[in-house]
């Protein structure tokens, strides 16, 4: 990471830390889904940007994480967010392992279709097994304890805009650091080789399928943790979290920020959530506007916002 980027990152981080003091509560609450999606997208981009596989079914793992949170706080009376996050990560990994071993046998469109099919299996399961999942009404999420402390007495917005905000931020930062180490490790290098030339990677002795499998499972764990983080501010989880259009939206966010850049997906999540909020406050038809934006992105700027930025300044090639 060069100096200018490090400064930009430090400024961005300081800005995010300062938000609860300087911004109106409304905007502080909007940052919560941003941070949750940030975690999801860091993982998704390991698969999309670094390994070259586009999943149209990662909403499965967001849904899994979110339902884990609802299930633990509700039926199991386990309220500690640390335990919830660990269980969500474990559940995502457990489901992802077999799913990934089927999916990584294919690339491109077939990979996308198989992930979509698995996502829809989970969606229909959530929708139809009413007794277990609450069907289309979903399940409420009770307020989790943070670091063992019951903050039930706090007013809801104060809880979300205060302790929960910093908790989410801490999770995002940890996820960010881990992912940074991962993509800059030999493991990350192998993934990039596979993306650019799988045949060559194979002749170099890299087991392409195993690496793709590992990237898939890691990205699923990230999506599970992100989903669990998303559950509390949402308050109620429902099957649409696992629907295929939700998978499409997170791919959209990644593309919006720029899948070729490490921080691109975070930028994408931020812009997506704020822009969606803004557009919805003006007209009810956010899909029309976002569809047009997506079409313009695909045609004119496939590198996303970070790609536009990188054209003018030389940014370190990842």
């Amino acid at each position: 990471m060069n100096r200018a980027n490090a400064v930009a990152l430090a400024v961005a981080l300081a800005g995010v830390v300062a938000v609860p003091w300087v911004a109106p509560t409304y905007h502080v609450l909007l940052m919560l889904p941003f941070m949750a999606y940030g975690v999801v997208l860091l993982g998704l981009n390991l698969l999309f940007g670094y390994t070259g596989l586009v999943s149209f079914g990662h909403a499965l793992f967001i849904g899994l994480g979110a339902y884990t949170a609802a299930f633990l706080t509700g039926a199991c009376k386990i309220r500690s967010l640390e335990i919830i996050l660990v269980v969500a990560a474990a559940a995502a990994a457990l489901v992802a392992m077999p799913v990934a071993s089927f999916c990584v046998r294919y690339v491109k469109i077939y990979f996308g279709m198989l992930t979509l099919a698995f996502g829809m299996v989970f969606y229909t399961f959530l929708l139809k097994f009413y007794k277990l999942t609450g069907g289309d009404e979903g399940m409420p999420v009770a307020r989790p304890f943070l670091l063992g402390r019951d903050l039930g007495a706090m007013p809801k917005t104060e809880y979300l805009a205060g302790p929960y905000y910093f908790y989410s931020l801490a999770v995002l930062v940890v996820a960010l650091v881990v992912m940074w180490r991962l993509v800059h490790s030999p493991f990350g290098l192998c993934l990039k080789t596979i993306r650019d030339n799988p045949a060559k990677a194979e002749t170099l002795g890299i087991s392409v399928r195993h690496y793709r499998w590992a990237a898939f499972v890691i990205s699923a764990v990230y999506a599970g943790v992100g989903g669990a983080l998303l559950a509390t501010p949402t308050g109620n989880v429902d099957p649409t979290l696992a629907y295929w259009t939700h998978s499409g939206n997170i791919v959209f966010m990644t593309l919006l920020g720029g899948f070729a850049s490490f921080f691109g997906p975070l930028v994408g999540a931020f812009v997506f959530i704020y822009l969606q909020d803004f557009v919805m406050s003006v007209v009810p038809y956010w899909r029309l506007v976002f569809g047009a934006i997506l079409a313009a992105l695909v045609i004119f700027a496939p590198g996303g916002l970070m790609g536009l930025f990188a054209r003018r300044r030389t940014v370190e090639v990842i």
Partner: protein
Amino acid sequence: MTNVVNIVMGGVFHASILFLVAAGLQITFGVQRVFNLACGSFYALGAYFGVSAVQWYAGAGGPPAFFVVPLVLAGALIGLTGVVVERGLLSFVYDRDETFQLLLTFAVVLMMEDLIRMTWGTAPVSTSGLYLVYGQARVAGATVPVYNLIVIGASLAIALGIGWLLTRTVFGRIIRATADNREMAEALGVDMRRTYAKVFTLGTVLGTLGGALVIPATAAMSEMGVELIVEAFAVVVIGGLGSMRGAFVGALVVGILRALAIAIYPELEMLVIYLIVITVLIFRPRGLFGGAAA
């Protein structure tokens, strides 16, 4: 027994609609290698436009017995808007990775859903009371609306028509040649721009026609497009991407199994379908009829 016939006939009706949309998906994928997620959106567009056309027809005092005429005309005509999507959007990304083409069709899905909401509102719309205009027929002891039989017949006729188009006409030969080897076809003088525009539009017309035909039996809702695309997706995966015979068999499998699942164990409805999709993808990734040209 009567019950089973009833269920299967319902399934076949659904299958004939699914076949039309899936055939549109197949021809687009077979020739252009674009998996058109917006096929479902065109289906929804056809449904809404069909309702409007029939309402206008009824308002103008047309005899109810001929309501299928404006319905089919509307369904076929609105499908021609596919050429706008092809020329205006997709034609820019043919040389790109197929992921971008997929995302572009996803953009169309998003836009179309809101365009439909803007034009027709959020409440479901329907052609009230025309479904049973042709009465009911008895088939092997079960009562089936005659309209369902008409749609099944129409779908079969269209299937035969597509078969004729692909195997017996010059355009069909061009389509098969392009699906087989695009560069060679181009080198032999095929105008790719026109072929792509025609093929894509043919695909969307099949989708809108399916939407228009289903509408007397149900109501048009803005989500019907995103819901149908995953079923049509199941059809083409089971049948094999790009294969017309695959679309036909896949539609029957999905339509009838879904009808049986709803009747026997409703919780399993679509779950059965996706489990079959996954099984097929794992053991026969090219689908039952994969590998064959469009």
